[in-house]
């Protein structure tokens, strides 16, 4: 760190003085807040200093892609050794800057499609990984030791004063902006259009230093759209078990769904299976999740009272706008999302349910695969016991009674993994040892990259049945309960049949027939929508799916 920023040696406002100097250099170049697109790289070279901590906004969906490319075109003699602190590494320029030496150090959450190249760059010594975080952790560190000096963000529109409208995909912007703007950092926004008056102010203009109208709208990926046509009978069976064996049993009303086909199957049988069971109004009333199109039938049939979203989803804009009783909508009529609040809401909900790639005998699960660094995203925060929670709810208390059968009465968040025993290509989901251990060695990580720890997990649902880990009294019992639902995997075939029967008698292992799930009904016929077109029909034409999902 520059010596002049230390109070003992350079006064109390060195960050602010440094900020003023940067802004002076920037204004000398571009004259005002609005930056012509072709001057963007020059501006970045002027306001970014070597060694800066920098955030290039990259969320699940919205990406400051134009600014990322502009930075990648900067001269490495002028801009180098940057420390990148951003949630998602999703685009090629995010890594190009490491290849060229513009950046050196990286703290992030999730790498997704760039995971393979990131691993190669780490191996080549081009990227020093500080740590891989969950979203809330990284944002937490923005407000402690990793505050960005310069943040490059993306918004839908700006006015000439720099007021920003993010549209439905607000996502991570508020967290980045707040940390940067209030600690003498520089904020540069790319917008799709500069207008006279923004529809609503998501970021006040006096926090924003520069706006650039990007030549093309920022990149948005429809990553939460699951085509019901791809949901299988097996997934329907698992969804039935989740509804009867968990949602109905505990009375789960506040929850967070993962974004896979498994949880989409649950959403799509709420209006059919759960409705017939008389569960409307009793389960699934409040959700913390993106506006996944597969939620439409459940919303339309009156299951869901309210949804808060971390971000939006392409094609859902009009539908969401027209359902302001359910979604969080601005005065302008479009949704406001916010990843931090959504993560927070989900953390204190009654239940998280998601999928994973591997589970071991303690119930630890991981989505890590060899040769890739993928990271965590938000699942570990959603998928963990909320030990700071103090308010009661029927589901939380019911789970608590199972979890704490002696001593101090407590509540318990339900954390559920929903997996098939084998994945496509016949690789087993249940393993004695997670690949995460090898990954730790390969990439020199401090810990194996575990997504959800076994002691946070309460239930595993497979096509075979449900393992209720709350009712297991020892690690040995826990392992047997897991084996009992692991089907024909090696792990499953090594089950001790006697012990499994004992666990079943206790309710720690539950098979479909034990909870009145009729396997013969487990077919796609139960899905309220079996195609994207059906979702459009449910939405009364308000949902406008992206072209790639259409078949009409």
């Amino acid at each position: 760190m520059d010596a002049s920023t230390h109070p003992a040696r350079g006064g109390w406002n060195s960050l602010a003085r440094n900020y003023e100097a940067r802004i002076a250099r920037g204004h000398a170049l571009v004259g005002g807040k609005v930056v012509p697109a072709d001057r963007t790289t020059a501006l970045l070279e002027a306001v970014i200093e070597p060694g800066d901590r920098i955030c290039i906004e990259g969320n699940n969906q919205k990406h400051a892609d134009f600014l990322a490319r502009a930075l990648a075109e900067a001269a490495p003699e002028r801009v180098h050794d940057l420390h990148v602190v951003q949630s998602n590494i999703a685009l090629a320029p995010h890594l190009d800057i490491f290849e060229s030496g513009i950046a050196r150090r990286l703290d992030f959450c999730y790498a997704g499609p760039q995971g393979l190249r990131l691993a190669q760059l780490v191996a080549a010594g081009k990227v020093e990984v500080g740590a891989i975080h969950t979203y809330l952790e990284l944002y937490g560190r923005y407000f402690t030791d990793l505050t960005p000096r310069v943040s490059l963000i993306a918004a839908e529109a700006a006015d000439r004063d720099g007021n920003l409208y993010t549209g439905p995909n607000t996502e991570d912007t508020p967290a980045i902006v707040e940390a940067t703007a209030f600690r003498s950092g520089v904020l540069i926004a790319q917008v799709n259009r500069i207008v006279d008056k923004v529809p609503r102010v998501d970021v006040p203009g006096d926090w924003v230093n520069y706006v650039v109208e990007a030549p093309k709208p920022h990149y948005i990926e429809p990553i939460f759209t699951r085509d019901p046509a791809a949901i299988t009978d097996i997934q329907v069976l698992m969804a039935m078990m989740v509804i009867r064996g968990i949602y109905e049993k505990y009375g789960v009303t506040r929850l967070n769904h993962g974004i896979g086909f498994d949880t989409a199957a649950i959403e799509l049988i709420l209006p059919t299976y759960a409705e017939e069971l008389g569960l409307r109004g009793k389960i699934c009333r409040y959700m913390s999740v993106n506006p996944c199109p597969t939620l439409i039938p459940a919303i339309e049939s009156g299951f869901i009272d309210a949804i808060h979203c971390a971000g939006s989803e392409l094609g859902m804009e009009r539908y969401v706008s027209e359902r302001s009783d359910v979604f969080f909508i601005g005065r302008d009529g479009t949704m406001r999302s916010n990843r931090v609040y959504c993560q927070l809401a989900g953390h204190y909900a009654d239940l998280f349910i998601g999928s994973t790639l591997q589970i071991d005998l303690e119930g630890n699960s991981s989505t890590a695969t060899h040769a890739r660094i993928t990271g965590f995203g938000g699942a570990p925060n959603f998928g963990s016991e909320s030990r700071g929670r103090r308010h009661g709810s029927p589901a939380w208390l019911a789970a608590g009674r199972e979890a704490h059968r002696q001593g101090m009465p407590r509540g318990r968040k339900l954390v559920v993994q929903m997996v098939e025993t084998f994945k496509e290509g016949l690789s087993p989901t249940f393993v004695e040892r997670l690949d995460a251990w090898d990954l730790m060695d390969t990439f020199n990580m401090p810990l194996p990259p575990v997504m959800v720890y076994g002691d946070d997990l309460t239930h595993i649902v497979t096509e075979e049945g449900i393992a209720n880990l709350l009712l297991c009294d020892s690690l040995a019992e826990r392992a047997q309960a897991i084996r009992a639902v692991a089907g024909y995997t090696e792990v499953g075939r090594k089950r001790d049949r006697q012990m499994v029967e004992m666990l079943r008698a206790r309710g720690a292992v539950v098979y479909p027939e034990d909870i009145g799930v009729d396997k013969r009904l487990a077919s796609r016929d139960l899905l309220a929508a079996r195609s994207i077109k059906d979702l459009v029909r449910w939405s009364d034409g308000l949902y406008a799916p992206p072209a790639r999902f259409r078949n009409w």
Partner: protein
Amino acid sequence: MERLEFRFAGRPGTPVAETGEALVGVVGSGNLEVMIERVDLGGGCLAVVDTSIHGFGDTWQQVLADFVDRRGLANIRLSINDGGATPAVVVLRLDQAWAGLEEGER
């Protein structure tokens, strides 16, 4: 492709009561078709599996043995064309095939 054949004792000596067959499922990636037929096997059962994924003989053996056992089958021939289905899908199709055979006989 790998061909696997399994014989199960079933209920030895059981005479063939009726004839019939049922076909369920379609061969495709991650899917399979199962044909179930009543034939005279002296009370035993036979399964012939043609699968596109090699090296899962043990798993097939166990899945099929459980099925024969669970249903108490005799004189049943199972013919399977497999495009790499998971055991979950195999079990589902076996149950559907059995239901189809019984339905055809009603």
